[in-house]
């Protein structure tokens, strides 16, 4: 796929050459890489990528075109896209058009023909950081733009991508009840999965207060995924504190992080995050491994709620279970780590033992990625039904 010559420059000054294959103009954002080999449309349209430039590590992107059903939001939220080879022709029976047209139609700046492996290694070794990219612009200008761009830490991006008004997604199949979903940047496939379980999903803005949520008489509250740093999300955290113990809660990704903060844990920025569809997660309850879809730059530190402190990650050999505390104590009772990332030992899920609430750092709804953890939606249903039965 040919296009005009274009450049991308990172905040620390590394220059990458490629060709412009998307919209005209300049894009600036935090550069992250995603190792998923398919599912580019779901990734670009995931609101969790708001403010970020996504490097796809797979060689060819755009091969099977785009299809409306794969969108996770009304529009792609990523700031820009960098790939090795953008397909000019797509081929798949579901395709409704080429990715290049989709990117242009939505004003996304995209670079192709880039040594994306070098860029990925750069991010791995020097951390996630701003990047500026575009064509018809000189290197110095991009360098300045990247160097002066804000970093993600401390930015409230979730409120900005959340729905301005509440809306309802109807249950599909036999109706079981109502779930209120606190929208911090929710992917469509999450709502689809909740609806498929028979729940009417009330999607409410990130700023919604606990009382307003409880007014909807939900069977459970879902805390969605979303972009950026969880710490500045003071209102959602407050909301959750108002809901804990009142109603069953299930959180995914950013939803997991804000639940952690609501319980009194802390969060921190990972060096370059987890973005891809091949992350092994250990289910601590039964030792089973789920291959998961992931997209986050921050993580929950469970040691803030536990005695002792985090041991050092081993320099060789596999990270072990001792990297997580056995139990945690919060003002809402006992909490246990439920899932662990096997690549780096980080916390991937937690479960409250005294109140009905649990969360995972990864994406059980997949879209894109493996669907090993789809059962978590069933777990949420069980939690809601049990709460119902004891109520």
């Amino acid at each position, binding site marked *: 796929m040919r296009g005009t010559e274009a450049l991308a420059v990172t905040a620390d000054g590394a220059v990458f050459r490629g060709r412009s294959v998307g919209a005209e103009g300049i894009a600036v954002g935090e550069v992250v890489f995603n190792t998923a080999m398919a599912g580019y449309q779901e990734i670009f349209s995931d609101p969790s990528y708001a403010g970020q430039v996504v490097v796809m590590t797979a*060689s060819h992107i755009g091969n099977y075109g785009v299809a409306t059903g794969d969108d996770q939001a009304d529009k792609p939220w990523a700031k820009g896209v960098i790939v090795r080879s953008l397909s000019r022709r797509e081929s798949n029976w579901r395709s409704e058009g080429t990715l290049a047209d989709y990117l242009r139609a939505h004003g996304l700046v995209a670079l192709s023909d880039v040594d994306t492996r070098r860029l*990925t290694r750069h991010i791995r070794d020097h951390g996630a950081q701003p990047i500026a990219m575009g064509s018809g612009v000189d290197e110095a200008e991009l360098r300045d733009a990247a160097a002066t761009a804000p970093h993600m830490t401390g930015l409230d991006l979730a409120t900005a991508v959340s729905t301005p008004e509440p809306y309802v997604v109807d249950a599909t199949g036999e109706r079981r009840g109502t779930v209120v979903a606190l929208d911090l940047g929710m992917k469509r496939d999450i709502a689809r999965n909740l609806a498929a379980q028979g729940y009417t999903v009330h999607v409410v803005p990130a700023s919604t207060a606990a009382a307003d949520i409880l007014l909807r008489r939900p069977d459970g509250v879902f805390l969605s995924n979303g972009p950026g740093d969880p710490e500045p999300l003071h209102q959602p955290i407050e909301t959750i504190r108002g809901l804990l113990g009142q109603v069953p809660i299930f959180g995914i990704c950013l939803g997991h992080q804000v639940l952690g903060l609501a319980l009194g844990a802390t969060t921190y920025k990972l060096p370059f995050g987890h973005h891809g569809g091949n992350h092994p997660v250990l289910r601590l309850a039964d030792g089973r491994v789920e291959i998961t879809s992931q997209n986050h730059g921050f993580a929950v530190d469970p040691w803030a709620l536990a005695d002792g402190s985090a041991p050092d990650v081993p320099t060789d050999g596999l990270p072990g279970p001792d990297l997580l505390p056995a139990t945690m104590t919060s003002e809402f009772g006992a909490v246990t780590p439920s899932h662990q990332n096997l690549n780096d030992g980080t916390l991937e899920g937690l479960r409250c033992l005294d109140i009905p609430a649990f969360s995972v750092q990864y994406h059980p709804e997949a879209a894109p990625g493996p669907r090993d953890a789809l059962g978590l939606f069933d777990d949420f249903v069980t939690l809601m039904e049990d709460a119902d039965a004891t109520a």
Partner: protein
Amino acid sequence: MPRRDDIHSILLIGSGPIVIGQACEFDYSGTQAAKVLRKEGYRVVLVNSNPATIMTDPEFADATYIEPITAEVIERIIDKERPDACLPTLGGQTALNVTTELAKAGVFERYDVELIGAGLDAIDKAEDRGRFKETMEEAGLATPRATYARSMTEAMHAARDIGYPVMIRPSFILGGGGTGVAHDETEFIAKARYGLDYSPVGEILVEESVLGWKEYELEVMRDRAGNGVIVCSIENLDAMGVHTGDSITVAPVQTLSDREYQEMRDEAIKCLQVIGVETGGSNVQFAVDPATGRRLVIEMNPRVSRSSALASKATGFPIAKIAALLAVGYTLPEIANDITGKTPASFEPALDYVVVKAPRFDFAKFPSASNVLGTSMQSVGEAMAIGRTFPEAFQKALRSLETGRAGFNADAGESTYGDIPDAQLLERIAIPTPSRVFLVGEALRRGMSVTEVAAASHYDPWFVDQMAEIYEVRADVEAAQLLAAAADDAVLPVLTEAKRYGFSDRQLAHLWQRTEDEIRDLRRRLGVTPTYKTVDTCAAEFEAHTPYLYSTFEDEDEVPPADRPRVVVLGSGPNRIGQGIEFDYCCVHAAFALGDAGYETVMVNCNPETVSTDYDTSDRLYFEPLTVEDVLAIVESEQPEAVVVQLGGQTPLNLASQLAERGVPIAGTAPASIDRAEDREQFSALCRELGIRQPPHGIATSAVQAEDIVDQIGLPVLVRPSFVLGGRAMRVVYSYEELTEYLDEMYGGVTGDGAASTGAGFDLADRPLLIDRFLEAATEVDVDAIYDGHELLVGGIMEHVEEAGIHSGDSACITPPPTLSPEAQDVILRATEDLAEALEVRGLINLQFAVKANDVFLLEANPRGSRTVPFISKAANVPLAKVAARVMMGATLAELRTEGLLPTEQRPDFVSVKEAVLPWNRFPEEDIVLGPEMRATGEVMGISDTAGVAYGKALLAAGLELPETGNVFFSLADRDKAFGLAAAQAFTMLGFKLICTSGTGRYLDHYGVPNELVPKVGEAEHDTLDLIESGQVDLVVNTPRGRRARSDGRQIRLAAQHAGIPALTTVQGALAAARSLQAGRGAVAEVRSLQDWHS
């Protein structure tokens, strides 16, 4: 769950000889398994009849049995070794089949041996198509509509129900043998009957045809906790209808959306679960309707397969090694990913490159076969290439095949396509053949649309469009020709683009009418040189600790700095008949020996099946084509002390002179010496000088001259065109008439399309005819030796069973030589030493002699590793390839003795026989006679105290089950009768009844050998053919009289082949077979480990 402590010793079953559909990938998997199980502290008992495997090197197991892989023999091994468990999933279909047989006979139960990896029920469910289908449907996975049949009546019924076209698939087969598509009833009757015969259980599946659908394969790993991961996804360029082994395949999949891929993934994991694969790797194959996305499960293998080897090499995830660990109880999260060292094996590799595998064919050796590809595998090898994009990997794969092509056309090989009319071109694109892919290129060159070409070829339009991009870059290259002449800088953009699209220097040289050297110089001046990237399983997310590299043209180079002197070992490329696992064995040994000696070893190869391309074998692995361009670039990057070219067969040898001329240091024997041995005239002069006799010979550049030479040296003669290797087009000619025929055939025809040379169409001026006096009834002898400049080390002298004139690769051989006189052996050894000295050999030399009475004639001398090195290494207990590698790097034999690498003690006291294995079952119309052109795909070894028993073992291992009693049909060519008499007498003594045609009968009568007459073919209703077809013959001994296609002999041999009756086509073979029968079946089934023989 940690490793199991309740088992201590494990029986590992190998896959036996290399055959089509089952090649060195199982040596790779078996070696990995043996290594890791021993490391875990288990006692490993291994059985494999193939001596050319690394896994049968005695240091890889505690007890290594080079014995026939039959139930009877394995039961003896179990009885002797009493293993706690048997791991049957790493030895291909051979291991699975024998395991099924053993289990059904109750052997495992009797000896309390546990099957680990896959249980009998899982094997049966996966292999029995009826049960497979049932299991899939119960689990909600769709399969093609199908019915299985055990008789022709059932089969016909099924076909009518489903409607044509239908697919016929025999149960329990490997490599798709006997599988086929029938478009109508006539075709169906023939193919169904063959399929029923072919299936060892007499069962076929009659199935809805999914021809033209997209084909996918997923490689799945599962542990006993139930965790499942997909190691690799593979998409076939060739649509359903072409066996995966014969298809060009691509990893990862390219044309599925994530939604479709994840559904397929879930089904693949589900498939293993419901089949009941407890632990290990399996592949699941899917067909997808390109128009609707409808997806069907086609089949699964509950074992490590050819695709697993490909997937391991394509991703860096060592499937067989991990499968072995899972089988002994570990779970995926407990095992570390070797490459990162600190992430677990419970993950799915992410690829940031594209892998293309291309098959290699040898159709020219089997003239009876059409070159149309189908559901029965016919390729003999494969090359894999890695690039950052599909176009780059695709072009690299095509040039890796060594079929004379420099990439996706843009080379001399494309010249013949220009004459094909458009309509015919599209028709030919619709038929899957080895050359189809190049015709697709030609269609794109002509400007045919991607849609049109995709429709004709059933290639997915995405791939065709990527190919079209290659053609657009080519057009830019062509347009830049004038620029190239003007100023270097002007071509920089187009040159860079071309290299990024995988164009080789040879292609650019062709397009710009320059030399390859000029292109390389231009690139260097402009700084367009390859960068090497790492295969790391994780798309750079984590740091990699294994330098497994491939080239591309990008910004960043990842070659790690080295701190020790480096030696590059050039591998042997894709397997082909005449060059396969034996050479890979030698290369692997070189890497081991040089690594032990403190060098940093650098392997270059492009064959995904091999042990050499395991990233564990060398310190650094470059998965690259073996061309001058690619090797020079690696040499430039690595700056090695030397490059080893002696051990990888003809592939690296062909590069040797070119590399040396460009300043590359070659290890050991100088390329000039290699050339000197190959140049007939120079070599003859040398032999005269040294007083070494050769058969009378001459070189002809015209038909008249050829006849003159024959006048001088006399008939029969051995003829072949010069510069043709591996016995290609070589023939024994008994009359002037046959000589004329041969000249017509070789020099009168037209050239094929170059995808695989057809052997015809040579030009006498370019390739003069080499004529040798053919020594009839002479014994052929092979010698492998090492010379260090001071001393000769003879690995062994091998006496061939079949007479000189039959290619050494197709002939059985025995060592130590049973009939050679000490005087003849002396002459041979003296000639070997004299030649090694005169040729200044440093390393290996292989010589072939013909011995008649006590006259010794030298046929050939090759200063390089030979096909017999692994066999002789085991027969003599001397690690020849390791010693040779060290000698090449300057060590002396004396030093190696001191060091302990070279044993000083006496040679082992046993007889070893090597027997060749031929692919007749893949080419059912092929006449099974042996000749000067090699056609064997593999070899087996038999070891015993006597030659008879050792030969019997080798025959059994090669799949030839000799009858113990019954009728032997004898029909001999006149020239074979004298020798045949001894064989006939031997069979009579054993109690066999001889049945003969009139000529042979009269001859035997004359010597008082009782026999019964049978009418010749067509002479009566109950003729020879009828006798064979009706099962009244138990063994056929028939030697060829000539090359006539419709000869009686050919019909007899084919009838025997189709009736499954063993047929021997040489009198020497027949005599040796009789001797092995004299030794008795019990002796043949007796087992003894290699460690025991060597001690």
